[in-house]
């Protein structure tokens, strides 16, 4: 049956930006588009749909440009030369949480945190904190948690920590567009209600440099995951592996470490935690252990979006 030129994703709808995206994904051999027939086209039908400029079933990035030029989608970005590089961060320092994509996830180090944008539900707002380690069956597996948008301002404590992690600065909302040393590091937020959060400054997936000023989103934003007081929990090293340049496994003398020191821990039930020693917000002369449970659950790492390949 004849198919519409340009309906590359075979959704039988108007030709739109998703057709250009499908074509570019196929050119790049990105997951789920590599064969050209994943969208119920035969190969011949796919070639016919993709060759928008010519009739010879030959196509390239030019055909994607042809579609983008004709649909005038407002989310189409300009192509600009790179004249300067952004800041770089120590690639082997576990205090930093580098970006991860579906292309790089297989090579991440054990027992380090990474951040990625998951677009499995056609959303670019699902930020995840990700780690790879041994599961309780002693197999390599992923441990992760979602990071939600962080909007609180009721910071309670303002201690100075000398460990791996710092407190979110009280003036954080004023410098959100600054690329500074905290961009790639996890921070801690202690609220006036004595609750805790791991907070991270990330590139905002919704930022679009070409959107007009009134509709512009911030280039960066803060995301968080809740941490709880786990001072009295017991920890085991059940199948846990600390890789090179990884966050260390918690030891029995953790209380003698500096405030702000990060650890990984596993409960005797096999739950994996990202931990930090901080000052007790109720008793500043004491320290407590707070942590967030990184769940060991299925995650489709193929959907980690390439938007996070850039520096954060």
């Amino acid at each position, binding site marked *: 049956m004849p198919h519409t030129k340009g309906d590359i994703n075979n959704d039988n709808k108007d030709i739109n930006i998703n057709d250009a995206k499908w074509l570019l994904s196929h050119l790049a051999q990105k997951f789920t588009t590599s064969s050209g027939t994943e969208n119920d086209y035969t190969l011949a039908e796919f070639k016919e749909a993709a060759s928008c*400029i010519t009739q*010879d079933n*030959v196509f390239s990035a030019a055909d994607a440009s042809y579609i983008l030029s004709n649909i005038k989608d407002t989310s*189409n970005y300009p192509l600009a030369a790179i004249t300067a590089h952004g800041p770089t961060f120590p690639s082997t320092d576990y205090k930093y949480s580098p970006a991860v994509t579906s*292309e790089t996830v297989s090579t991440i180090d054990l027992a380090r945190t990474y951040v990625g944008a998951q677009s499995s539900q056609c959303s670019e707002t699902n930020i995840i904190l990700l780690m790879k380690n041994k599961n309780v069956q002693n197999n390599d597996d992923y441990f992760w948690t979602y990071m939600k948008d962080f909007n609180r301002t009721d910071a309670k404590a303002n201690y100075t920590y000398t460990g791996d992690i710092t407190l979110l600065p009280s003036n954080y909302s004023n410098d959100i567009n600054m690329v500074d040393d905290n961009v790639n590091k996890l921070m801690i937020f202690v609220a006036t209600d004595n609750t805790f959060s791991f907070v991270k400054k990330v590139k905002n997936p919704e930022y679009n440099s070409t959107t007009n000023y009134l509709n512009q989103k911030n280039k960066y934003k803060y995301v968080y995951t809740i941490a709880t007081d786990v001072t009295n929990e017991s920890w085991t090293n059940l199948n846990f592996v600390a890789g090179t340049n990884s966050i260390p496994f918690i030891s029995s003398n953790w209380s003698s470490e500096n405030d702000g020191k990060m650890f990984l821990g596993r409960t005797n039930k096999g739950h994996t935690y990202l931990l930090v020693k901080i000052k007790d917000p109720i008793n500043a002369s004491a320290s407590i252990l707070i942590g967030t449970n990184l769940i060991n659950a299925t995650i489709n790492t193929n959907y980690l979006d*390439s938007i996070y390949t850039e520096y954060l």
Partner: protein
Amino acid sequence: MSNSSFGDFNSDNVVSLADLTLLLDGWGTTYSLPNLTALLDNWGQTLSLGGDFMMRVDGTNNVQVKVPTTHTLVGFLASFTGSNISYNTSSLNQVFSGNHKVSHAVATDVGLVGTGDWQTVFTLNSTATLDTSATVNSITGTPECHLAVIANGTHTILTKHTGNSTDFF
């Protein structure tokens, strides 16, 4: 090698009085003695700097394209001989990538205007080699590395690659 390193500061591929004027205007700020030396060494010469449309990875892992001033870059496919490439796309939105290919395209009115010199479109985080094969992909019918360009003032988008462009790599 860039045009400017030959003393061809206006990138017209000829070292002439126009370049000397530019040099004098920018002396002490944009230009200095090494630029004057380059201009004198190549005075009056028409430069052979490779093809009009080119693609390369430079010595610091920048993926670069060269497009003449008469054309605008509106897309590309960069394929590499290795796998699991890692790259930095700080100026690229809507980039698509497999484990050894990166593709991108934009509308013709927001493309990258050619300068006749090398321009970086994205940066690799580690060394990788472009797939310079002239063999066409069995599905697309196009070589694994190509540029999409449009001649300024026209409406036809062209695909440039090693099969139809001299000295593409």
